[in-house]
């Protein structure tokens, strides 16, 4: 069984700051990490590897420095890593990105057919959640997003049963491989790599693929291949006020609680009705 996991290297958004003079994003010195959502998908892929002996290839489209994220994924247990990198990819929106990644996955499939493609639910820098579905659509793979659990995978019949987060509940879906899966955040915890995986990752000779190598057409990647254009980027106006500190009649917890409730209902009168309605309904 061959599993491909698509990851993206992103700036650690918790540490992103805006340059006070130029109003641009200060990337310098901000550590680059694997998109946190990708880790849930990667962990699930590695668990399948443990369970059924699948081979896991990690793929990323990015600049040369994305190599460090691939090595990190290898150190967690991935078997192979491919860096899809080319100047022509710069400026790709999600349509162009899913096109480029698909060309690489098809190339990988030439060697060994791909059974499952895992993608992160969304990225912390783009947040669009579009690349996974884009890849599934292009490859004609069954699309399974917001998966909370892989209940069963039968290699012989290639049937997979999953639980999918839906409005108000969970769908239990059954489908046949090949499929594309994005995992919901919080469904697992990424493992701590073993020493020999660390060694293997440090020594691994990375496969670096260009646009030419995968056969991606120039007109369908980069800015040329992107229907969406960024018209402007700006700093949001900061919320004018900090928290309104609640003053209580006295220091006792009861007084503070009473003052807090008054403040809550003053700020949100509808909330009072809401809560009463819920209480009345016995919720």
């Amino acid at each position: 069984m061959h599993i491909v996991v698509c990851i993206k290297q992103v700036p650690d958004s918790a540490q992103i700051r805006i340059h006070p003079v130029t109003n641009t994003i200060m990337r310098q010195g901000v550590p680059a990490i694997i998109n946190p959502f990708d880790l849930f998908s990667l962990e699930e892929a590695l668990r399948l590897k443990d369970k059924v002996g699948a081979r896991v290839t990690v793929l990323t489209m990015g600049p040369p420095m994305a190599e460090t994220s691939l090595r990190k994924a290898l150190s967690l247990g991935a078997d192979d890593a491919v860096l899809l990198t080319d100047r022509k990819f710069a400026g790709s929106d999600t349509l162009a990105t899913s096109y480029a990644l698909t060309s690489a996955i098809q190339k990988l499939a030439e060697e060994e057919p791909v059974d499952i493609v895992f993608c992160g639910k969304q990225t912390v820098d783009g947040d669009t959640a579009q690349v996974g579905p884009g890849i599934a659509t292009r490859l004609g793979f069954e699309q399974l997003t917001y998966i909370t659990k892989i209940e069963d995978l039968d290699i012989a019949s290639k049937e997979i049963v999953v639980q999918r987060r839906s409005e108000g509940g969970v769908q239990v879906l059954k489908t046949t491989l090949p499929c594309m899966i994005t995992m919901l955040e919080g469904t697992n915890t990424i493992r701590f790599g073993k020493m020999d995986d660390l060694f293997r990752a440090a020594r691994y000779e990375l496969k670096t693929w260009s646009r030419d190598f995968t056969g991606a057409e120039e007109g369908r990647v980069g800015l040329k291949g992107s229907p969406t254009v960024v018209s402007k980027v700006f700093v949001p106006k900061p919320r004018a006020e900090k928290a309104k500190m609640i003053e209580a009649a006295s220091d006792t917890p009861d007084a503070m609680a009473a003052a807090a409730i008054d403040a809550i209902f003053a700020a949100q009168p509808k909330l009072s009705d809401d809560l009463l309605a819920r209480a009345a309904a016995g919720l």
Partner: protein
Amino acid sequence: MSEPSKPQGRKFQLPEHLKVYKNVWVIVEQERGIVHSVSLELLGEARKLADKLGVEVGAVVLGAESPDLNRICGDAISYGADIVYKVTDPALADYRTDPYCRVMTDVVNAHKPEIVLLGATTLGRDLAGAIATTLATGLTADCTELDIYADNRSLAATRPTFGGTLLCTIQTLAYRPQMATVRPRVMAMPERDDARTGRVVEIRPDLREEDIVTKVLNFIADREQNEAQLAFADIIVSAGKGLGKVENMKLVFDLARVLGGEVGVTRPLVQAGWATNDRQVGQTGKTVRPKLYIAAGISGAIQHRVGMEKSDLILAINTDPNATIFDFAHLGLVGDALTILPALTDAFGRRLSVNRMAG
């Protein structure tokens, strides 16, 4: 709102073959007969955009034929649609990517809307990406603001980027339809007007169930499950390291129970084993937008903040008056959560039960 004199966006001549695309559509999300409120919010937004463009609002309702579906079509008109495309087939009874995507792309190709909006729900985001890729068009996700740029009559979709540090406005100039998803509760709910009229177009795609690979085996409603459903909770009481010990989590659960809400935690608590990760709120946990978020003993680090800062009302309780959380909470209480939480539980309990008894 734009001032006519100020240039907006690039001047752009739409290619001839795309000029036939007209109207602003909303894909109305319904599951098991219940409309997701975000679809109604989007109808209100679509109305504003359509008025600016001088075109009509279309609503697409997909599902199996049923009285519920007919009612939903009526609702769509009451909330602003001029045309409702009612697409029915037994295979559409439950949401699955493949049939929904195929049907939607056929309907879009047949009727050529210039803008298609969906709610950024699990269904909406799953479907939008598939449709946009099939149609090879532009899609902007999780928009916080939608507008039309007068200079090019194109949708201007604004969304946060880099965890909310920046905003960017995105346009799809040379492709149609222009697609966008919007999160629930970002746009205002429009007024319902039952006097409104509109027309319903019936579409029967005639799907074959045997052609669809993915099957729905079951649907487990949340009430049956033990897991927390934070993403959809209206009231959340959340705990951070300030709580001190795992035994104190009881205080959080007590308050949540009285309020009919859910319990959330910060990542360190999940890592310490005080709660399971389905309760984690934050960058790598859940993003929540409840009506009321009570943060007890939470410092307000950015990784937690991005998961809850859009809550309607945030009350922060912390012993440290300089805690970061007070920078963005709405209400602040400097005090010990360990004594205040039980006091709140008590006080809310009394206020709410009085009325229950009276009612």
